[in-house]
């Protein structure tokens, strides 16, 4: 049996060069220091993506876009064996994935891992995050319940308000002047064909660059002489720990999905007013609040401009803080990062308070 396995392995190795790949993996090292923990978050995000692909394909088996969308999700949730679990896992993993990517992004940012030669790794990472948010936005509509309907109706007002080309773009995205079954149908195409087709090659580039450049040393460690820096081999040490993190992640997801099954609201009704305190998913809450804060047409344009500017600056940070000898510039980049974290945190918490207050107000009014 062992001899057979060995000869199969040899047959494969001669044709695929498995030993070369393994030698590369053994040769590759991962820095060991007090911030090594943050290196696992890219892998965790990747696991969530794989889970999304797997559960997404399973949902495709029963989901029907268009006018039957709500009914098919109702069937998945209440009629099909374990359908509620698959759907719950898909929704939970979507949210946990965005969370993991945020942690990954901020850890990369504060460890200055975007510096030369890893700029393209940073840019592709931002691209992946933005695609994930579009995944989230388009997937949110697919059940066509009340929340999905209003989230999309309101969300599409953002492109709508862009001067000149806005209405044309928003109408094309909606497939009409109001959110309807045409919107579901095209969001579905976007969610399961267009976005994966864009996401996969970008993810491939991102992962290849990580292999090529390896994990970055944080600046505080990088200044130490090479003899004082500790590393561990990628294979098998880091990979084993990576897999252990995946196992923990899988367990967390299983607990969330099984004990807090994702809700399905009432069927969307274009003639009904939204329930009080309606709000988007948590990762859109910050922009939701900023748009609320600035009133009037000019105020909204200003808020959106502010967000766009922040995103552009955030993306271009490797060009500003480009080398490890950046000194003052490196410090400014850190301050900018802290400012972004504080603004996002404050506006998000504020938004949840505002929502809670609205719900309370409504309850008192009744």
């Amino acid at each position: 049996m062992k001899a057979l396995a060995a000869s199969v392995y040899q047959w494969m190795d001669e044709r695929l060069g498995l030993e070369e790949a393994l030698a590369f993996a053994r040769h590759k090292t991962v820095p060991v220091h007090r911030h090594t923990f943050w290196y696992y978050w890219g892998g965790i995000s990747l696991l969530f993506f794989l889970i999304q692909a797997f559960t997404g394909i399973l949902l495709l088996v029963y989901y029907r876009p268009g006018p039957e969308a709500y009914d098919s999700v109702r069937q998945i949730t209440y009629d099909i064996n374990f359908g509620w679990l698959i759907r719950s896992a898909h929704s939970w993993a979507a949210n946990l994935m965005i969370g993991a990517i945020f942690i990954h992004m901020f850890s990369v940012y504060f460890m200055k891992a975007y510096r030369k030669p890893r700029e393209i790794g940073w840019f592709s990472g931002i691209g992946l995050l933005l695609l994930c948010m579009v995944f989230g936005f388009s997937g949110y509509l697919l059940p066509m319940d009340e929340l999905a309907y209003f989230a999309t109706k309101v969300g599409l007002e953002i492109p709508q308000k862009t001067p000149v080309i806005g209405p044309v773009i928003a109408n094309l995205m909606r497939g009409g002047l109001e959110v309807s079954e045409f919107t579901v149908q095209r969001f579905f195409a976007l969610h399961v064909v267009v976005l994966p087709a864009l996401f996969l090659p970008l993810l491939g580039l991102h992962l290849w660059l990580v292999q090529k450049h390896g994990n970055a040393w944080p600046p505080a460690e990088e200044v130490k002489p090479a003899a004082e820096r500790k590393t561990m081999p990628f294979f098998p040490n880091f990979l084993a720990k990576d897999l252990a993190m995946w196992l923990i992640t899988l367990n967390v997801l299983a607990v969330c999905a099984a004990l807090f099954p994702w809700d399905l609201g009432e069927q969307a009704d274009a003639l009904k007013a939204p329930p009080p305190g309606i709000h988007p998913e948590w990762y859109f809450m910050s922009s939701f609040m900023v748009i609320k804060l600035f009133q009037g047409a000019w105020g909204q344009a200003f808020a959106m401009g502010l967000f766009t500017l922040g995103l552009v600056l955030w993306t271009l940070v490797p060009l500003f803080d480009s080398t490890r000898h950046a000194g003052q510039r490196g410090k400014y980049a850190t301050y900018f990062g802290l400012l972004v974290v504080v603004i996002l945190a404050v506006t998000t918490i504020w938004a949840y308070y505002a929502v809670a207050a609205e719900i309370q107000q409504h309850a008192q009014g009744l």
Partner: protein
Amino acid sequence: MNEPAAPSEFCEDSANVAPRRAFVRVAMGGIGLCYAAAIGYPVYRYLSAPVEKAEVLAAITEVTLPEAQKLPSGSALMFKFGPFASLLIHHRDGGWSAFDAKCTHMGCTVQFEADKDRIFCACHGGTYDPKTGVNTGGPPPKPLKQYEVKVSEAGIVVSRVKTA
């Protein structure tokens, strides 16, 4: 491992390493199997939900076809026996017969040809006797599955032939 075992804080006693390693390997394999089952079982049941429904449907023993007794003699109609396409024939001599319409050759759907008084499968040219379902020509290896037919005023009752 030809090198002398390095002193380690985890395993001072090198004689115990082999069984310990074997234990860890079995434990990991067992846990892995538990995970595979915990994921595989719901996925299997999820995918097989419509199969389970169809099996319940297929377990029926009898179908009533209202108004089917008005079918003119020398003609046939298709109906569903549970999930399966089936064939009801009213013969020219007034007799009735019903079959599962699945050809015994490659599972195609057979049809009644009144002018030739035979059951014919268009896929590979198999033929059957319209009264008994016996295969009379072409590739089919065995007769069609036959149902019992009872004619009443309300309709026609087709039922599974009781097998011993």
